[in-house]
């Protein structure tokens, strides 16, 4: 199974500013001072190998969109944030003119998780089969609403693809194109749902826009059971712990610290920090990753937990 991150930012897409790019260049030049590069290749290798990620690259700014590639002809994706546009281009390039079948799993219907759909190319292609799965009663309504006046010039009914909405129930397991999918209710304004995917002995949990009330033991135990022994957990780590339980309490998001703790207790193999706060710079996200890795080191039990931070374009092979 391969996981491709097309959008990893929370709440709102962001882009690098002129000041951000200048800052990265200045930091790179300082880091390279005294060195000599005789070719573009040497300079490229230096940038890739020697500079911190936050200097030579960027976590990116598209909102939630994560593809799960099981090596099948059909496509599977979680959420339709602004990353869905690039995902649509990827499908078009790979299909080479053939219509595609796409399974979309929706965590919830907040704007940052649906905003990419009006720009999702395959939806405009006749013959494309799109099945949109979710637990919300307003699943279809939300997609139709954002593609209606005065929000968007193309009406939902004008889309050429064959689109079907499939309502799921939290806690029930489903077979979708040979894959087992289990949604679970999460704490978020208007509710959100995490998804556990299991196929060919591998398991992945996609859990974004989920607040963890530390005093709610029943919820904590349910989450640990949901995460249990997963190969990969993609986790909402939008805030620091201090923010998540003080000034941003009840905003519906979690932290890097709680991600590490829950995954350690659930014997997860790999935690990926996700849904980055749009106000955070690349350096701030890199700092949150460094902190999470250090916490894991300080509190490690018998098995290590690998910790990463998602960025647009990241691919993880399970």
């Amino acid at each position, binding site marked *: 199974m391969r996981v491709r991150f097309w959008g990893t930012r929370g709440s709102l897409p962001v882009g690098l500013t002129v000041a951000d790019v200048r800052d990265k260049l200045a930091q790179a030049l300082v880091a390279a001072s005294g060195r000599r590069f005789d070719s573009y290749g040497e300079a490229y290798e230096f940038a890739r190998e020697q500079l911190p990620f936050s200097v030579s690259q960027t976590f990116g700014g598209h909102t939630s969109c994560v593809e799960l590639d099981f090596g099948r002809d059909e496509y599977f994706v979680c959420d339709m944030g602004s990353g869905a546009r690039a995902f649509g281009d990827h499908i078009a390039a790979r299909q080479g003119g053939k219509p595609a079948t796409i399974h979309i799993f929706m965590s919830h219907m907040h704007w940052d998780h649906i905003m990419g759909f009006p720009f999702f190319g395959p939806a405009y292609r006749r013959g494309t089969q799109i099945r949109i799965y979710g637990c919300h009663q307003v699943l279809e309504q939300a997609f139709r609403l954002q593609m209606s006046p005065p929000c968007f010039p193309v009406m939902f009914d004008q889309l050429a693809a064959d689109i079907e909405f499939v309502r799921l129930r939290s806690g029930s397991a489903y077979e979708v194109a040979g894959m087992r999918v289990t949604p679970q209710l999460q704490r978020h304004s208007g509710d959100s749902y995490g998804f556990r995917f299991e196929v060919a002995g591998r398991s992945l949990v996609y859990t974004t826009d989920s607040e963890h009330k530390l*005093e709610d033991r029943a919820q904590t135990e349910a989450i640990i059971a949901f995460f249990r022994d997963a190969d990969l957990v993609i986790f909402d780590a939008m805030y620091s712990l201090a923010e998540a339980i003080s000034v941003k309490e009840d905003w519906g998001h979690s932290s890097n610290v*709680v991600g590490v703790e829950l995954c350690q207790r659930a014997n997860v193999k790999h935690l990926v920090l996700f849904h980055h706060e749009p106000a955070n710079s690349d350096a701030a996200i890199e700092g949150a990753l460094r902190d999470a890795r*250090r*916490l894991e080191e*300080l*509190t490690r039990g018998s098995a290590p937990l690998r910790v990463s931070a998602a960025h647009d374009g990241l691919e993880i092979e399970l």
Partner: protein
Amino acid sequence: MALEHRTYGTARVVTPRGRLDHDTCDTFQADLAIELDACARDGAALVLDMSKLEYVSSAGLRCLMIAARQASARNSRVVASAPQAVVAEILQISRFNLVLPVFATTREALASVSPDALAAFDRG
């Protein structure tokens, strides 16, 4: 979790021991509430001497934040002191050093509370 306390002028120094995590936080919170009541009654600040604390989890940190809020609502305050290296790092990682003033020593924490608390500490 056992809570010891000592009084220095207008400060009550409370010393939790062991691990403050999801298994111990409920008891700790109940015991700490008693100490906070005493502080409110005596017009004292509460100093959490963390020198005997081996580990604090997110659930434990939440207890500390609630204590800080409760103290503030009653015109009192909570400060922390002398964390062991691991706990100090966890406070930093979780950004709790922005929620709760943390001092390297209990003497420094008492000095931040009041001159008479510091004088009482120095008298032994």
